[in-house]
C-alpha cells in the first residue's frame, strides 16, 4: 500500500536512523541533562568526568538507549537493549495493601552504606560495569531491605544515574526541541510551551504548500516548527523590523533536508510591504550577514563544528575539546567560522536556511498574499507588527499570535476589532497537566508548569 523508502534516505527529515553528520538530542539520565549535538567522528559527550565518543551512535535507530561501559581505551557508549527486568515490576492493584514496611527504622546517620569510595574505585579498576556497582551498593546497604518497595526503587534509580548513566538518542523534532528549551532555558524561547506552540501551528493552519509569514523572536524555534510542517513545500518567510534579521539558529538543530532549508527565507517587513505597494525590491543573495555558514557545494568538504546547544544543568568544562565537546557554554549556537575548524572533522553540514526570498516569491506573495501569519515575538508590542503584517495576508487567512503577556494581546485584539480588520478574534491560554499513572498511585504530577503563554487568533477579512 505504501512504501518504506523513508527509512533509508538520510536526507529525509523523517529518517528513523542516525547518520554521520546528523543532528541529535541526547537525553541523559531521563531528562537530567539534555544535549543537542551533531554525530561526527570526532564529537564527544562529557558524562561525569569522562569524554565518550559519539561514534557508536551513528547508524543507530532513534530511540536507542546507551550505557557507559569501560572500554580498553576508556569509557565507551554501548547500546543497552531494553530487557524484561528494565520494566519496573508492577505486581498489580494489591501492591500497596501488601506493603508492611515503613520508614520508622530508617535513621539518616550516613552509616548505612559499608562500601567506601575507594572500594568503588577498585571495582572500577577491575572493570566492573556500572550495573554491578549499583548491585554491590545495594548488597552493602544495611537499610535497603527495610525500605518500602517504592523507596527501594528510588534508591536504585538514584545509584543507577550516578554509576551507570544512560543516554537516550532522540530525534530533534519541534516537540523535543521546544520541550528541551522550555525545561532548561525557557527565556530563550519566550516561555513558549510545547502546547502553545502546537496551538499556534494549528490556529495558523500551517500545512504543506502554504506561504506562511512568520515573525520569530524565539530563536528560530517557530520558523523551524513551521518548516517542519511544510515539509519542503510552500514557504516559511521569516520577517523582521529594521535591518537586522532575528536569529533563527534553532533551525539548525532540526534535521532539515536542503529542500526544506530552501523554503525558509528571511525578509525585512519593509521589503514585503514595498512588494505589496508594487515597488520592486532589490534582492542581493550574497549579502546575508547573519546567514549560517556558506555551503561550498555538494562536496562534503564544508564543515562546521558542533553547534552544540548543550542544555546541560550541570556545568561542563568546555575547554577540553572545544569544537567537539557538547558544552554548556555555547548554548546560543555560536556560528563557528569554517576556517577555525580542524580539517579532520568532515561531515555533511545542514544546508543554509534563511536566504532572501527570490524575486518570483516576492511577486507571488504580492499578488496572492500570504496564506497565514504566525507570530512569537515576546519582546515587542504585537500591534506594532500586526498592523503592518496583516495587510500582507490573503482575505480569509488565519493568524495566530503568541505573547507571554496578556495586556499587549488585549490591546492588539481591541485595535483589530476597531479597525474591522479581522473576525473570530479570541485570546486563549492553554493549561497543561501531566499525570503519574501507576497502579493505585495515579495522581497529577506534583510539579507542573503554571504558564505556557497566551495566543490571539483570528481570521483576516476583506475590507471591500
Amino acid at each position: 500500500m505504501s512504501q518504506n523508502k523513508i527509512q533509508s534516505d538520510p536526507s529525509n527529515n523523517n529518517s528513523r536512523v542516525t547518520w554521520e553528520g546528523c543532528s541529535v538530542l541526547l537525553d541523559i539520565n531521563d531528562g537530567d541533562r539534555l544535549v543537542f549535538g551533531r554525530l561526527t567522528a570526532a564529537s564527544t559527550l562529557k558524562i561525569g568526568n569522562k569524554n565518550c565518543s559519539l561514534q557508536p551512535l551513528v547508524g543507530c535507530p532513534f530511540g536507542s538507549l546507551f550505557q557507559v561501559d569501560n572500554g580498553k581505551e576508556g569509557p565507551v557508549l554501548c547500546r543497552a537493549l531494553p530487557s524484561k527486568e528494565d520494566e519496573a515490576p508492577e505486581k498489580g492493584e494489591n501492591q500497596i495493601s501488601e506493603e508492611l514496611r515503613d520508614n520508622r527504622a530508617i535513621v539518616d546517620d550516613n552509616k548505612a552504606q559499608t562500601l567506601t569510595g575507594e572500594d568503588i574505585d577498585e571495582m572500577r579498576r577491575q572493570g566492573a560495569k556500572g550495573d554491578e556497582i549499583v548491585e554491590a551498593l545495594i548488597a552493602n546497604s544495611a537499610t535497603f531491605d527495610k525500605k518500602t518497595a517504592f523507596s527501594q526503587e528510588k534508591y536504585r534509580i538514584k545509584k543507577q544515574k550516578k554509576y551507570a548513566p544512560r543516554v537516550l538518542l532522540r530525534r530533534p523534532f519541534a516537540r523535543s526541541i521546544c520541550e528541551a528549551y522550555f525545561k532548561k532555558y525557557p527565556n530563550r524561547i519566550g516561555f513558549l510551551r510545547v502546547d502553545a506552540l502546537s496551538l499556534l501551528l494549528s490556529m495558523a493552519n500551517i500545512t504543506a504548500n502554504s506561504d506562511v509569514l512568520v515573525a520569530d523572536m524565539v530563536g528560530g524555534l517557530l520558523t523551524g516548527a513551521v518548516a517542519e510542517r511544510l515539509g519542503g513545500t510552500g514557504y516559511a518567510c521569516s520577517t523582521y523590523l529594521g535591518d537586522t534579521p532575528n536569529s533563527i539558529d534553532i533551525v539548525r538543530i532540526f534535521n532539515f533536508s536542503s529542500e526544506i532549508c530552501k523554503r525558509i527565507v528571511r525578509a525585512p517587513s519593509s521589503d514585503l510591504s514595498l512588494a505589496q505597494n508594487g515597488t520592486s525590491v532589490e534582492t542581493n543573495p550574497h549579502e546575508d550577514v547573519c546567514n549560517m555558514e556558506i555551503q561550498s557545494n555538494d562536496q562534503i568538504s564544508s564543515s562546521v563544528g558542533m553547534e552544540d546547544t548543550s542544555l546541560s544543568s550541570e556545568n561542563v568544562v568546555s575547554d577540553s575539546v572545544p569544537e567537539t565537546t557538547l558544552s554548556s557554554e555555547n548554548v546560543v549556537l555560536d556560528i563557528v567560522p569554517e576556517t577555525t575548524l580542524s580539517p579532520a572533522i568532515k561531515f555533511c553540514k545542514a544546508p543554509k536556511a534563511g536566504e532572501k526570498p527570490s524575486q518570483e516569491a516576492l511577486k507571488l506573495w504580492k499578488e496572492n498574499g500570504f496564506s497565514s501569519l504566525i507570530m512569537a515575538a515576546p519582546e515587542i508590542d504585537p500591534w506594532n507588527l500586526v498592523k503592518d503584517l496583516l495587510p500582507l495576508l490573503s482575505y480569509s487567512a488565519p493568524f495566530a499570535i503568541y505573547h507571554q503577556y496578556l495586556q499587549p494581546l488585549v490591546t492588539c485584539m481591541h485595535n483589530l476589532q476597531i479597525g474591522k480588520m479581522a473576525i473570530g478574534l479570541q485570546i486563549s491560554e492553554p493549561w497543561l497537566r501531566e499525570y503519574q499513572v501507576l497502579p493505585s498511585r495515579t495522581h497529577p504530577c506534583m510539579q507542573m508548569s503554571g504558564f505556557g503563554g497566551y495566543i490571539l487568533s483570528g481570521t483576516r477579512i476583506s475590507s471591500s
Partner: protein
Amino acid sequence: MLPTDPTKKISFTRCITDGDLVIVYERHDVMKAIKVCDDSILQNRFGVFKHSDWIGKPFGSKVFSNKGKFVYLLAPTPELWTLVLSHRTQILYIADISFVIMYLEIVPGCLVLESGTGSGSLTTSLARAVAPTGHVYTFDFHEQRAASARQDFEQTGVSSLVTVGVRDIQGDGFPDEFSGMADSVFLDLPQPWLTIPSAGKMLKQDGVLCSFSPCIEQVQRTCESLRSNFTDIRTFEILLRTYEVRQGKMDGSRDNGGGSLPCKRKQHSIEGSNEQDNQSSAAVMARPCGEAKGHTGYLTFARLKCLS
C-alpha cells in the same frame, strides 16, 4: 480545504465559485458550513441570502441579506470545520487535536492509523499534517458513520489523503498490511488496552502512540498494557482558557454611571462619555470567560521500544 491544488488556494484573486465549501460566519460561536450552489439560498435570522450574490466575491467578504444584515464567508480550515461539523459522536477539539499532532510527531509524508473515525474532527487535522504525500487510514466499526465521514472528507477536499475503513479495531486489531508501516497510531476507543498489542505491531520502531480516554480507569489499564512494549509513557490533560476583552470605565467614584463597570465595547457609546475627566478614560480590559470546559479526556502517549 488544503492548498494542494494551487488554483483552489486562498489568495487576493481567489473568488468564491459555484460548488465551493464556505463557512458562513455570523458570530464567533455561530457558524455554518455551506456548499455554494448558484440557484440556492441561505435563510437565517438575518433574512435571505442568495448564493448567486456570493459567487465572484473573495473569501473573507461580508455579504448582505435581503434585510440588509450581513454575514462573512470564510474559507474552510480544519479549525473552522471542527466548529461546524455534524456531531455523530463526541468530538475532539482544538487543544487536544493540536497537542496530539505535535506529540505524535506527524509531518508531511507520515502514515497514520486512527480508530475510531467518529465525526472526523481529528481526522481532518491529521490529513492536513500528513499532506501532500502521507496518508491517514482511519477505521470505524459503524458502517453508516464511516460512510458519513467519507462524504465529509469528500466535501472538505481531504479525501485523497484519507481512507476510511469499516473494521472493529478493538476486536480484530489493525489490518496486517500496515505491520511496521505506521509512523503514529491514534486510539479513541472504549477499551484501548485491547488494541495496544496490535498498535505495537503496526508502528515503526520509536513510533508514537496516543490513546484518548475520558476516564482515568481507562488510562490506568491502558498504561499497564503499554508497559511491556512501549517506553516514555506519559499522560496529559490539556484545557483552554479563553478571555473576553472589553472596553469600559473604571471610576473612582461609586455613583457615577450606576456601577456599569466594564461594558462591552459595542454597547459603550464613546461620544456620550464625558471626556474631560482623564482618570476615568475607557480602558481595554480582559478577564477569563465565565464558562469553560472542565474536562475533555486524558491523552496518553507512548513510544514503541527500540529492540533492533
